[in-house]
């Protein structure tokens, strides 16, 4: 096999024989592989994590000083729960988390789920733990005085949130979020241990059909990860220099 053929397979996955396709799952989930699948898992989990991360970040906000005692107790209860949850998830290696998602549903609940969906579920949970922290610090990064200035101009709380707080928070968060996405993308490589046909696993399947070329295949794989991640980090640099205009006093 020449380099072009190898790259094609690394991009779209190792071809799957028709008899291995399970008719009870969506076909495209079984036919994608390689870099496509790595990106698909990373993108889906990133997008799916936004909602839980947002909720957790809101739960972790402290109540304001004028709030009633009951309000304060309830708020700090949820805040502690949310903090505990994110801390626990951050303490588990992604390899272990992925294995948990693959090997617990069946013995515990007799559930059979397509591997790709399990992978997306594991990565969504994993991502939301890190995204929560980004959202939280993003919202806290908005200067209180800026909010006050908006209030004095007569803006409603609704306008203040959507026109001042959210846009400023998003600007400060974008580079960190891109960074998180790259981290997730790189971490999808642990799925190779679970025979999910993403980029790294595809390369291992190729060892069989292209024996003697291990080194070349692996160098290609490493270069692909490197290129995606490197371009991403350059994008972050550009984003940072852009948002600098908008987000500093």
């Amino acid at each position, binding site marked *: 096999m020449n380099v072009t053929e190898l790259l094609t397979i690394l991009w779209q996955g190792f071809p799957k024989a028709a008899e291995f396709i399970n008719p009870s799952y969506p076909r495209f989930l079984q036919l994608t592989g390689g870099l496509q699948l790595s990106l698909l898992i990373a993108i889906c989990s990133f997008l799916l994590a936004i909602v839980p991360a947002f909720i957790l970040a809101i739960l972790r906000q402290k109540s304001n000083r004028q709030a009633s005692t009951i309000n304060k107790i309830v708020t700090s209860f949820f805040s502690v729960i949310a903090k505990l949850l994110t801390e626990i998830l951050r303490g588990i290696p992604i390899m272990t988390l992925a294995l948990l998602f693959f090997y617990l549903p069946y013995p515990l609940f007799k559930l059979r789920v397509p591997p790709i969906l399990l992978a997306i579920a594991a990565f969504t949970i994993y991502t939301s733990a890190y995204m929560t922290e980004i959202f939280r610090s993003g919202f806290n990064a908005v200067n209180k*005085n800026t909010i006050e200035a908006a209030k*004095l101009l*007569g803006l409603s709380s609704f306008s203040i949130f959507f*026109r001042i707080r959210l*846009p*400023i928070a998003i*600007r400060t968060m974008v580079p960190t979020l891109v960074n998180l996405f790259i981290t997730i993308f790189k971490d999808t490589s642990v799925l190779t241990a679970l025979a999910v046909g993403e980029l790294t696993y595809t390369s291992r399947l190729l060892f069989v059909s292209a024996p003697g070329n291990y080194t070349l295949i692996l160098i290609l794989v490493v270069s692909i990860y490197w290129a995606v991640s490197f371009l991403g980090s350059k994008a972050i640099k550009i984003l940072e220099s852009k948002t600098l*205009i908008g987000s500093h006093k």
Partner: protein
Amino acid sequence: MVEKKYGKNLVFSNLSLDLNQGEILTISGRSGSGKTSLIRIIAGLTDFTSGELIIDQNKISPKTRYPKHLLGRVGVVFQDFNLFPHMTVLQNVSLALKVVKKMNSSSANNLAIKHLNRFGLKKKYNSYPNQLSGGEKQRVAIARAIAMKPLVLLLDEPTSNLDPTSILGVQTLLKELADDGTPILAVTHNMTFAAQIGNTFGVLNNGVLTLSDSSDILSQMNEI
């Protein structure tokens, strides 16, 4: 007459002042004398303990909530300007015109441009706050407040973040605004500045405000 306590600490009591059209009142005092608290009380950002605040026939006491319709009508220029960092100069000034005064986009922009031109910011419409000098930021902050046609303009330490040339600029600007009829209250520890712009002068010391229409009173500051 307004009284302000933080917990048990009395900041000032029996403080009484009137501010009329076209008047510039300066209040000087040491840091911690409650100058900023006074501004925050008038603007509705901080509660006060007792007394009464009357703004344009609206009577406000500690028990009544600060009337919502006054937000946007009391212009405040903060010490560090608090411009919206993610918006251009033009957007900073036109935002409240659009959102609060419900002006359409083009007339809001025209009005904002009119004020910015007046304050010598013609070339800065599309700059972001962090691309401006201290003096420019302050002029944007004043334009932002003035564009809303405020009943009163409050300034918190207007000179502290400015270089000497910019201070001269802001003096002229404030006098012009007062001549147009906007009453101005500036709290400052800069006595020279206070003496230059004020018609009425106040010194706040240990919670007591002494007012005078002669800048001689500022010499009290040296004795404090």
